């Protein structure tokens, strides 16, 4: 064991400035682990257990830990406490004394806490030479409890091959470590040996176990302090590996703000101060209203009809959505807002159909054309923009739309250098117009009402008589609640 393991107790060794995500987690775990061990403050009882001819120092049962977690972290379900405890173990903060696999069990299995020296927050990245020394040392000591597990024996064999040329050095280091260990008190050695083993169980886990030291490569790249990384438990560092690995070359550190940056910030803050914002109460009402309105469409909140394909293995739900016949529930959604009507391709088609029947479809067609323009590959944009201008805005345009002079001027200017956003102004204006005019009429139309109320048309809608009858029906149905009937067998058969 390296010298001064307890002297270098690294409690609170985390740089308070270091708020990288890993350190935040470690701090939280360390807070929990310290609380568990604090017997005076409601922690678990850590004691010595008598076993056959020997004593087992400094242990606590898994059940005790689970109970503590449930009580002190307000966990209702023991499964959750066991899961959390297992993760704390997997990260190396507590370990079973008789197993290499780091999980927590809710029974009499005995656990020990890890020495702060070995805590992950010390940025350990032990090298293979270290691991070799450790395994070698284990084989030198004649104790049953130190016998190598199969996977460890395999690892040792591999390391012997890899470090063939420096094996003498490793052997000597292992011998030195054994000498140091022999000087320690028997009980203390039991504890230290187990903690050392648990350390290696984290950094060289049992095959099949999660390696919790694996890092997200994006975080690796941002390693701010490669010098803080500890590479050897035994004070030995491999010269060849002293180059920081490519994973640790710091990428752009966060830049210090320049004068320009601050100027931009000031301009931006001024804009924000002038922004009109809503009160939280209003926002809350709006959020609640939205979720309530869409509740019946959310398969996680309301039962779908037909059943959710993922649950029942019956794909009728999707087949129905794909068919051109929309359900009443789907049609009802078009009535929530024009955005909803346009989002649904069937809704969009019906809206267009209605407007065409009134010979007033140019606004919607313009809006759709501009949406489509934005989806085109770059090289087609300029010519398509010109086509749209010709069709809808030029003098004598076949589908002339009505723009206010200001928007018209702006658009005309934009068309001198046509791009994907040349019609943004015009599109916004037309959208507002449609919302207050065409859309409202669509919702009152036969086309829409027939679908919403699942009526079969009795008379052609575009005759005078047809319109009157529809109007009568509409007036009558206004009194009924429009919560939309569930899909009936009638709809399904069409």
């Amino acid at each position, binding site marked *: 064991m390296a010298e001064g393991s307890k002297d270098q107790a690294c409690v609170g060794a985390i740089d308070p400035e270091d708020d990288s995500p890993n350190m935040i987690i470690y701090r939280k775990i360390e807070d929990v682990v310290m609380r568990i061990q604090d017997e005076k403050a409601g922690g678990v009882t850590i004691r010595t257990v008598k076993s056959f001819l020997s004593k087992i120092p400094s242990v606590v049962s898994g059940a005790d830990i689970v109970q503590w977690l449930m009580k002190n972290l307000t966990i209702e379900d023991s499964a959750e406490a066991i899961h959390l405890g297992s*993760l704390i173990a997997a990260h190396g903060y507590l370990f079973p004394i008789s197993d290499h696999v780091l999980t927590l069990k809710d029974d009499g299995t005995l656990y020990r806490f890890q020495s702060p020296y070995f805590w992950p927050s010390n940025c350990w990245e032990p090298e293979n030479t270290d691991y070799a020394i450790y395994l070698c040392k284990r084989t030198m000591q004649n104790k049953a409890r130190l016998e190598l597990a199969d996977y460890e024996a395999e690892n040792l064999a591999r390391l012997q091959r890899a470090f063939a040329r420096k094996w003498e050095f490793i052997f000597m280091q292992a011998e030195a470590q054994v000498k140091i260990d022999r000087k320690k008190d028997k009980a203390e050695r039991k504890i230290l040996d187990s903690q050392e083993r648990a350390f290696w169980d984290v950094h060289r886990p049992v095959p099949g176990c999660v390696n919790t030291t694996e890092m997200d490569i994006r975080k690796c790249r941002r390693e701010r302090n490669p010098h803080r990384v500890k590479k050897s438990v035994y004070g030995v560092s491999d010269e060849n590996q002293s180059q920081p690995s490519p994973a640790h070359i710091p990428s752009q550190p966060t830049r210090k703000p320049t004068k320009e940056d601050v100027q931009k910030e000031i301009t931006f803050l001024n804009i924000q101060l002038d922004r009109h914002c809503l009160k939280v109460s209003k926002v809350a009402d709006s959020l609640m209203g939205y*979720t309530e309105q869409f509740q019946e469409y959310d398969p996680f909140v309301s039962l779908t009809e037909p059943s959710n394909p993922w649950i029942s293995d019956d794909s009728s739900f999707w087949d129905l959505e794909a068919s051109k016949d929309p359900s009443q529930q789907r049609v009802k959604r078009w009535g929530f807002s024009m955005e909803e009507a346009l989002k649904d391709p069937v809704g969009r088609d019906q809206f267009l159909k209605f407007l065409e029947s009134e010979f007033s479809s140019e606004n919607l067609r313009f809006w759709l054309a501009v949406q489509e323009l934005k989806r085109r590959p770059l090289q087609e944009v300029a010519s398509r923009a010109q086509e749209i201008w010709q069709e809808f805005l030029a003098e004598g345009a076949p589908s002339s739309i009505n723009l206010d002079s200001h928007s018209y001027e702006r658009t005309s200017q934009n068309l001198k250098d046509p791009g994907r956003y040349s019609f943004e102004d015009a599109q916004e204006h037309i959208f507002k117009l449609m919302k207050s005019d065409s859309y409202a009429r669509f919702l009152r139309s036969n086309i829409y009402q027939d679908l919403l109320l699942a009526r079969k048309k009795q008379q052609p809608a575009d005759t005078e008589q047809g319109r009157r009858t529809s109007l009568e029906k509409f007036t009558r149905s206004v009194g009924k609640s429009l919560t939309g009937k569930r899909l009936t067998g009638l709809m399904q058969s069409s």
Partner: protein
Amino acid sequence: AAAQSRPSALQSGESLATLKNESDSLKKKLEEERAKLHDVELNQVAEKVELVSALSIRTRRVLKGHGNKVLCMDWCKDKRRLVSSSQDGKVIVWDGYTLNKEHAVTMPCTWVMACAYAPSGCAVACGGLDNKCSVYPLSLDKNENLAAKKKSVAMHTNYLSGCSFTNSDMQLLTSSGDGTCALWDVESGQLLQSFHGHTADVLSLNLAPSETGNTFVSGGCDKKANVWDMLPCASVSCRLYDLRADREVAVYQKDSIIFGASSVDFSLSGRLLFAGYNDYTINVWDVLKGNRISVLFGHENRVSCVKVSPDGTSFASASWDTSLRIWA
């Protein structure tokens, strides 16, 4: 006009220190102004809302096939297919419903951190440590080598962390460890727009679910989530930020949740929030009431990505345990 009426050191070429002072006092003022709008807590108002009925969400499908950590996934618009990418360099297209693997591509780099399905369903985009985002058209011919038709679209100067098609197959939005986001024309590979606003790596991006708007949000290592054309906010854990009130309106946390969330998505109505965590679990939150409804176990390593399907009937999760799961 109101902004101009505020005295500012902007024009007079003042020192960095003076500018910093002005910026700090504006920030303070902004905080005060916003605090005035904080008249109530969301979960208080939501007390009168009905509880969500007990959910019995379970794993409905497990997709096995990747050889290493699954880093990203995306749904196809057809609500059942998905694409996933892994540390082992493979990108797989699955029919999630039948568990069929329909296509597989081997990328020239490992750590494929981003992937996206094109709206048409005819192509996928992916990239990672190669600093690029490439588009692969999906061929119906099983024998055809997809890699042959690969098209390099985006080029960054650092790793690709996220990609997404905007409303069409023709434009690709990317985010990168080089601190920028960019919009590209797929056909020509030309850079259409560049977004500089993060001071460090950009880790993720998400498009606003709107036909009419052209907004997206990006999150970065500088602890900012930028909504482009709008306000940067500081956000580290699972928080709900409302753009209209310009403030955080809810935080989703629990004493027993120690590990961070890697990915979140809303259910269709916005009532539920699904969050994948580094403790291998997925937590389901009531967005309005702020409480956790349930915790889902199943993955055996970190959850890297969570996405709700286009029609909201399920959500998929990708994990470092090399599998994907579909939950409903």
